[in-house]
């Protein structure tokens, strides 16, 4: 008598998880996702329609289009768009595509203009997107030009939450504030901590690309399981990272002593902090200790904030400052304390992604503090940095590893069913190294990918 492979417990268990090729939802299980969500070009195409085509996508910070006529070129998913403040001061988002024969009408990354002229046949659009000029117009009837709807197309929904501009390609669905859920604290918090109540991104942008799927970066934004291992080479004696933020002489403490010892512990050093996941795939990390808030104790800063809020108000603000990364699914990470920055994710292909990081400057910060933030970004997130370079390397190794067809699944079981409830409906809280946030991202991904047209 022979034992058939199909009868073995291993095969039976595997069968339980085999994804139905006709059912995208089956690719996401409570404790795992199927490898094809990172590697299948057909799934990527569908993501462009259903994830980037349905969710609120971050586009720009208001300071990038501060004055009438200011514009900023970016992408919504793969689609080139222009964020523009029109002559009346309203922020609009156009598709960067001439309504005649399709060329982009704006090549510059940002600037100020009173019109966009297509370089192909000279069609002109004003800052409201209105078709304002057609060369040799005698070959068209006036009715044709009036009736055809040849103004620049606009993204159907655009919302600006306190300077953070998002667009949504779907004209139905929840509003931006409901979509962000607990993450408004990331935006409110950084503005509350700004002595003059404003921030901007005026010092340049770190840009890099990797051969890997876009989701790796948005997942990594609240993955506190990886730092002791991926970033072992940036940890020095005493478990401090060698990066130096303003006021931190040693660098942040990231492991107890050394990475080699960490393997023997049941819990991560980071587990003194929390990972929160919420509806619409939103997630955030809390900061592990007060060493991440030394900038808030800087003397000139403290004096300004006490003048604004009073002693008790300042201490209350200091206590409540807790959010490290706020991860706005699907494409933006806001580091709202310490080395503050906006990080955006541009999906290019199933295995090609572009990242941009804009260090934030805070109005009312002492000059040396703002400079500290921008210099810190050089060693934290540049293409030559001590941290992000190794993340990029790991993303590419994951993409390469996923070419192996077995095992079929990636495991997302850390802390599953051990979480407790947060204050927002649907919000779950786990320890920082748990995969709580990633599970929430995939729950939303599944909703978006399987919802009918």
């Amino acid at each position: 008598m022979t034992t058939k492979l199909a009868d073995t417990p291993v095969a039976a268990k595997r069968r339980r998880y085999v994804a139905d090729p006709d059912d995208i939802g089956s690719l996401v299980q409570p404790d795992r996702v199927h490898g094809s969500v990172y590697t299948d070009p057909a799934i990527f195409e569908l993501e462009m329609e259903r994830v980037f085509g349905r969710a609120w996508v971050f586009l720009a910070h208001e300071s990038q289009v501060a004055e009438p006529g200011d514009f900023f070129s970016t992408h919504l998913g793969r689609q080139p768009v222009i964020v523009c403040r029109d002559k009346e001061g309203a922020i609009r988002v156009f598709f960067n595509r001439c309504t005649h024969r399709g060329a982009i009408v704006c090549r510059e990354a940002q600037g100020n203009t009173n019109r966009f002229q297509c370089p192909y046949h000279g069609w002109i659009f004003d800052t409201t997107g209105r078709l304002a000029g057609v060369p040799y117009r005698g070959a068209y009837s006036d009715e044709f030009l009036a009736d055809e709807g040849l103004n620049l197309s606009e993204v159907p929904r655009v919302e600006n939450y306190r300077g953070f501009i998002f667009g949504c390609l779907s004209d139905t669905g929840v509003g931006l504030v409901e979509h962000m859920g607990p993450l408004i604290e990331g935006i409110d918090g950084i503005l509350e901590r700004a002595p003059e109540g404003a921030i901007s991104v005026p010092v340049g942008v770190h840009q890099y690309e990797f051969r890997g799927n876009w989701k790796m970066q948005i997942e990594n934004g609240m993955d506190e399981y990886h730092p002791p291992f991926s970033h072992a080479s940036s940890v020095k004696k005493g478990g401090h990272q060698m990066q130096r933020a303003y006021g931190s002489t040693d660098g942040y403490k990231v492991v107890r002593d050394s990475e080699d010892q960490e393997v023997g512990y049941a819990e991560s050093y980071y587990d003194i902090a929390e990972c929160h996941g919420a509806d619409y795939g939103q997630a955030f990390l809390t900061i592990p200790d007060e060493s991440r808030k030394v900038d808030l104790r800087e003397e000139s800063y403290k004096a300004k904030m006490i003048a604004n809020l009073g002693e008790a108000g300042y201490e209350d603000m200091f206590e409540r400052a807790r959010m490290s990364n706020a991860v706005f699914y699907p494409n933006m990470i806001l580091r709202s304390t310490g080395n503050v920055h906006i990080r955006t994710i541009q999906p290019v292909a199933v295995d090609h992604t572009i990242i941009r990081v804009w260090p934030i400057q805070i109005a009312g910060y002492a000059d040396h503090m703002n400079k500290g933030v921008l210099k810190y970004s050089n060693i934290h997130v540049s293409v030559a940095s001590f941290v992000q370079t190794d993340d990029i390397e790991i993303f590419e190794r994951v993409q390469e590893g996923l070419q192996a067809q077995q095992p079929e699944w990636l495991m997302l079981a850390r802390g599953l069913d051990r979480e407790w409830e947060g204050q927002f409906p649907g919000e779950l809280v786990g320890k920082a190294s748990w995969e709580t946030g990633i599970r929430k991202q995939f729950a939303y991904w599944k909703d978006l990918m399987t919802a009918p047209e």
Partner: protein
Amino acid sequence: MDAMAAPPRRKMALPEIWEFLFYEAELLNEQKFEAWLTLFTPDCLYWMPAEDDQLDGESRISLYYDDRQIMEDRIYRLRHPKMYSQRPMARGVRLISNVVLEDGHPEDAPVVLSSFTMTEFRLNEQRTLGGRYEHHLVRQDSDWKIAKKIVRLVNCDGVLKNVGVPV
């Protein structure tokens, strides 16, 4: 812009300075990072701007803006067995030419301008980085030291891949 406003015709640097630049490049080619660091002064700066014609690294971001401490940390990392982004480490060869002196600097503290290309290979992929070097040298104990090295990549403001080994 005045199209006829040409840059000054600069004097070629002395052979001794060429030799020094070749030596510095060779230390990097050979991955002798510790020896490379000894060529720099204690208050040195190694700067790779992130923008074309960038004036300073204090008010704008940079790809590298390393004081001596950051350079030491960087070398510590390059030697660390778990610096995954450089395992395997990239191999590179630097070619330097057009070595001239900027006007108006004393003989014992010259500013040396040059052009370079670096061919780099890692994980079965070859790429070329190119641009201009600017070496601020000082005479010390009858030899040269580097007070400041500026590396202006032609694609410094592009979407880049990791630049993990100093150029």
